[in-house]
């Protein structure tokens, strides 16, 4: 029996321990992050096993809910927290490659990012969710500008402006809900949402939806994504796609299902999701720069998740959660591989990377990651897309399914082009050997993708609880 609050308290402790360790040994700090994230991933795994029995509620500071803050961990929250921490662990191995100083501040911000994203997933209190959103955002702003070049600063500035507007909207939504219901506990809000004035209810929902949409990379609010991903250091691009984005979309699911208890088709959410898919995939097709292409592809994938949430049947939401897991693993893998390719080619352009992935240690995981993101059957990405499609199909939304498939074809096209270039026979002499810090996280992530693709039963067992989640449970 472990308390979920440890998942938040321990990264915070290690984050502020790192400057003290940094006085003695700069190298020690890097290993401290690996240790901290590994510990967190283990604890999240244990928490997942507990949450499968029954939802875990952790009352903070001895104040009983609905007055006090409570952490609410159902099976779905626990598995997203587990995946977030697992990917954070894989990325922290790749962090050993980051050479720029000051490494201590970098490590602190990275651990705060992990802590904020985990907190957003675990919390059961609306205002607490806002605080964790801000912790995540502030850490992300700092990390996006970490390279201290023009590209990094401009990307970070864009992120700050759009992110602050988003969090202002979240606060506005919280104020509207509080003005009517005088409570901030999510389950308490859910129980009394029917007594709200319908106009205020719609306004509050729209504000929260737009606010969390910034982190979830939803269509009109995602112009920061390519610039921030492109300007950030390579491990941080991987972390952005996997940690805050997943936490943001989980918060969105909390708003839709737990608090507002929408159970039927939400056309507004589906349309936003579809627009996001189209915007992301079509712009990604036109990109020549590898990291920008991956960033736009990430937008497209997040759009598919939002669509799955909007369709709102058990199967579609199950697909959305499967897609979250597959995307967190696959996109982190691709960004780490992209970091290596850019380092090897000394350029961010895809056309300069001819034959750069011909080393099997990089090439095979890269291929697995790309195929999984495309949604090929034996890999993790297949089930997510398949369930979203089936969910939509069973309800008869044929037009939406057709558009979804059209966007997926564009996605396959640009990934196929990218794979062809990096595996092409070319300048073999320039291919350099990767070191362990690069290929170990790639292999870890690739193995997980293959395992949950070939043997999806454990994940499906957890996702069975989607029914209770949609009905407003933890």
């Amino acid at each position, binding site marked *: 029996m472990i308390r979920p609050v440890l998942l938040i308290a321990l990264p915070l402790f290690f984050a502020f321990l790192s400057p003290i360790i940094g006085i003695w040994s700069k190298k020690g700090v890097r290993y401290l992050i690996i240790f901290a994230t590994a510990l967190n991933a283990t604890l999240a795994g244990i928490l997942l096993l507990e949450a499968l029995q029954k939802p875990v509620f952790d009352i903070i500071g001895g104040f009983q809910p609905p007055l006090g803050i409570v952490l609410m961990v159902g099976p779905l929250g626990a598995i997203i927290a587990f995946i977030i921490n697992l990917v954070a662990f894989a990325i922290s191995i790749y962090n050993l490659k980051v050479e720029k100083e000051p490494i201590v501040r970098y490590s602190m911000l990275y651990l705060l990012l992990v802590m904020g994203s985990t907190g957003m997933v675990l919390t059961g209190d609306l*205002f607490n969710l806002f605080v964790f959103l*801000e912790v995540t955002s*502030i850490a992300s702003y700092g990390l996006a500008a970490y390279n201290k070049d*023009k590209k990094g*600063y401009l990307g970070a*500035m864009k992120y*700050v402006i759009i992110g602050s507007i988003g969090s202002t909207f979240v606060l*506005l939504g919280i104020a509207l809900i509080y003005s009517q219901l005088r409570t901030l506990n999510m389950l308490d809000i859910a129980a009394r949402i029917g007594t709200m004035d319908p106009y205020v209810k719609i306004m509050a929902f729209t504000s929260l939806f737009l606010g969390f949409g910034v982190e979830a990379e939803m269509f009109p609010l995602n112009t920061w994504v390519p610039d921030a991903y492109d300007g950030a250091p390579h491990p941080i691009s991987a972390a952005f796609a996997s940690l805050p984005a997943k936490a943001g979309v989980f918060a969105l699911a909390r708003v839709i299902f737990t608090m507002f208890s929408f159970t039927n088709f939400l056309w507004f959410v589906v349309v936003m999701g579809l627009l996001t898919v189209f915007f992301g995939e079509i712009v990604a097709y036109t990109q020549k720069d590898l990291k920008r292409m991956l960033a736009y592809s990430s937008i497209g994938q997040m759009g598919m998740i939002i669509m799955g949430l909007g369709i709102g049947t058990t199967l579609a939401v199950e697909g959305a959660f499967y897609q979250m897991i597959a995307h967190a693993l696959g996109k982190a893998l691709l960004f780490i591989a992209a970091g290596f390719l850019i380092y090897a080619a000394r350029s961010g352009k895809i056309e300069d990377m001819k034959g750069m992935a011909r080393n099997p240690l990089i090439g095979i995981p890269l291929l697995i990651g790309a195929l999984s993101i495309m949604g090929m059957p034996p890999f993790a990405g297949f089930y997510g897309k398949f369930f979203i499609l089936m969910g939509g199909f069973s309800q008869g939304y044929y037009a939406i399914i057709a558009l979804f498939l059209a966007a997926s074809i564009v996605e396959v096209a640009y990934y196929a082009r990218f794979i062809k270039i990096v595996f092409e026979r070319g300048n073999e002499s320039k291919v350099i050997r990767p070191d362990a810090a690069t290929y170990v996280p790639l292999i870890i992530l690739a193995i997980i993708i293959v395992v949950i693709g070939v043997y999806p039963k454990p994940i499906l067992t957890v996702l069975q609880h989607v029914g209770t989640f949609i009905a407003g449970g933890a």
Partner: protein
Amino acid sequence: MIQYYYLGSIALIAIGMYIVIAKRNLIKIILGLDIMDTGVNLLFISIGYVKNATAPIENVPGPYVDPIPQALVLTAIVIGVSVMALALSIAIGIYKKTGTLELDEILGVKK
């Protein structure tokens, strides 16, 4: 009476939003974000306002104002200040790299 507070806060949010969208100078945009934030904070405080009430302190006779919005706004102010500090420091970084804070010049937009 309380409606005036709501009007004021909505006006502040709208002014801040307008500045962020329309102005092309980074410092002005950051100020716009701050004004927006202030508007939401004012809205939050006015939700908890009760006329002729006092702070909820023991031994002081009621009625009391709602203390939760005040606690939340204190948190929101602290968060707002840290975002502002970070935004300004990034603006300093941009100024050092490009020598200007006008977005049109930084991004090379032709007028």
